[in-house]
């Protein structure tokens, strides 16, 4: 890989981040929602509102407000959150691990289940796995997540009493190292805490994983079938190679690049979905704060959260791009197309 490629990608990322900051900043300032009225409530006097407006710098021209905001960013200051009455950056740092744990768990489920099922569906084409995978894929992308979340809470949580309904843990957790409760409790060898954290994670992660799982499964199936059309699987079979090795080591690897692209596309969608899922499961993460901030017209919170999400998305997309040549050595990043 060429250094210039990485450099140009980094510049591209910065352009996108700057674009998002301008977009969200302008939206929050130009659209009619009034953050000051929302922050002070109904009983605020006009003087109080005017005073807060000056304190927050809302009386300055737009470009000056944006300048101040960007200046603050470089010193890690995203302003005060109206909803939390604390610095936005503090709230984000505190809540980010919970959301990351949820999203990574969901992504892990989606890949670990979706990929093998996709392979099976392609190998036994039109067989029972393929037929049911088609049905599962249709269900996975068709249900509203908030509703399935509620139904899981009702069925598994309340009626069968198998899983907790809300929150992230209900027993004391060991000291935070990674911020991921499941990993922290494993490091501390506290298995009660691990089990508790895992039980809390299952339902929200499943709801979040269902749609991506379905799409990954269908994508793997389609690309596996394309690969089977080529002569090399037939040759490998003729050489007496075990079908498992052929399918998973050779064909899947060749068929995986489009799935990697798909995963890059799925990440922003999953973050969006986590706004609903965290709200339903009272998951103490960034997305729930984000939803509260949006609903409460907490402008600094909205901008901060959006930028962090955007950063996460562009970084993960870069990671996905850097993985291409590892999975498929024919791909040269930055080469002239």
């Amino acid at each position, binding site marked *: 890989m060429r250094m210039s490629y990485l450099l140009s990608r980094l510049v591209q990322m910065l352009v*996108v981040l700057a*674009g998002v900051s301008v977009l969200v900043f302008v939206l*929050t300032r130009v659209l009619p929602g009034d953050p000051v009225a929302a922050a002070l409530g109904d009983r605020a006097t006009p003087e109080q509102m005017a005073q807060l407006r000056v304190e927050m710098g809302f009386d300055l021209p737009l470009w000056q407000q944006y300048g101040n905001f960007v200046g603050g960013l470089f010193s890690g200051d995203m302003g005060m959150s109206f909803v939390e009455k604390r610095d936005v950056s503090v709230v984000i740092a505190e809540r980010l691990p919970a959301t990351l744990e949820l999203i990574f768990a969901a992504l892990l489920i989606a890949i670990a289940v979706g990929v093998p099922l996709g392979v099976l569906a392609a190998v036994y084409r039109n067989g029972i796995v393929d037929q049911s995978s088609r049905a599962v894929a249709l269900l996975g*992308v*068709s249900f509203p997540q908030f*509703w399935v979340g509620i139904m899981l809470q009702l069925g598994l949580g309340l009626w069968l009493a198998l899983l907790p309904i809300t929150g992230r843990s209900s027993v004391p957790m060991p000291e935070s190292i990674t911020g991921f409760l499941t990993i922290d409790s494993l490091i501390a060898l506290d298995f009660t805490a691990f089990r508790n954290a895992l039980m809390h994670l299952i339902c929200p992660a499943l709801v979040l994983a269902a749609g991506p799982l379905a799409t990954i499964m269908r994508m793997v199936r389609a690309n596996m079938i394309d690969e089977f059309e080529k002569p090399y699987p037939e040759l490998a079979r003729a050489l007496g190679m075990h079908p498992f090795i052929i399918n998973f080591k050779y064909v899947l690897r060749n068929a995986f690049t489009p799935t990697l692209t798909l995963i890059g596309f799925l990440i*922003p*969608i999953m973050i969006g979905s986590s706004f*609903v899922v965290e709200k339903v499961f009272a998951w103490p993460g960034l997305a729930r704060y984000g939803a509260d901030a949006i609903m409460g017209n907490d402008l600094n919170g909205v901008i901060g959260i959006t930028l962090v999400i955007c950063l996460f998305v562009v970084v993960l997309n870069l990671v996905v791009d850097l993985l291409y040549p590892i999975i498929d050595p024919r791909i040269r990043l930055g080469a002239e197309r």
Partner: protein
Amino acid sequence: MTETRPLPSAADVSLDAVDDRLSSEQSWPGLRRFMRNRPAVLGSLFMLLMICIMAFWPWLVPYPEDVADAVNFDRMLERPSAEFWLGTDEAGRDILTRIMAGTGMSLGLGLVVITCAICVGVPVGMIAGYYGGWTERIIMRLVDVFSSVPALVLALAISVLLGPSLVNAMIALSVVWWRVFARIAHGQMLSLKTEPYVAIVRQMGASDGHILFREILPNMASAILVTASLDAGAVILIGTSISFLGAGANPPAAEWGLMVASGRAYLPGAWWPSLFPGLAIFFTVMSLNMIGDGLRDYFSGE
């Protein structure tokens, strides 16, 4: 600047004639081929039923007065029964009535948002792909910016800032969704503009507008149609989520996401106010996806 001359009419006529003959030969077997896809037919039939309900619900619903803010203290949270097929909600309103009345809100949202997104996104994406250079770079970076914020988040924020209502949720989703069609049109344009017929028509003196919208656009219609039918479901899911979170339709509207949200307070005792509106969303989106899958298979010749 090249001089723009009217296209030779003889060529036009003969091409049109060929087109007509092709389409008349293909349309009926084409329909038959689509009809062989059973899920797609099932989805289409269900969608037809929904459209009928959307159009005629005032005459179909069993309790027309329950659509808005009626309160019936004598029949609050009643279980599903012969009298109230899907039970009643916390204000004693018939849930079946409200689900039927809410059909138009969800279908309408999907239709309006997808239409607006196509009208903005397709021309923008086509222009980016056709002209290339800085035009393309600026437009596609803008698409990147819009794509790097999750659709639900951006739409939710815009809807709240405009003031929560169903119409504002539609506006917000349209602002978010144009990028999907811009990207599709851009990708299609890159491959279509190298086709020989484009060079020929340009040599004949056709204007850019003619080339873009009369010659190339029809050739990307199938890709746009497939995306539109698949995305309509996704738009409805996000739209109902926005209402569920409280940034879309306002009470007492019979909006499905809102109904799930208000029914949630009465769990686990009363499960029907939140179960059935969710099922309505689910079946609507599923039938749209079945149609979309069918169209995709149809156009890819599977």
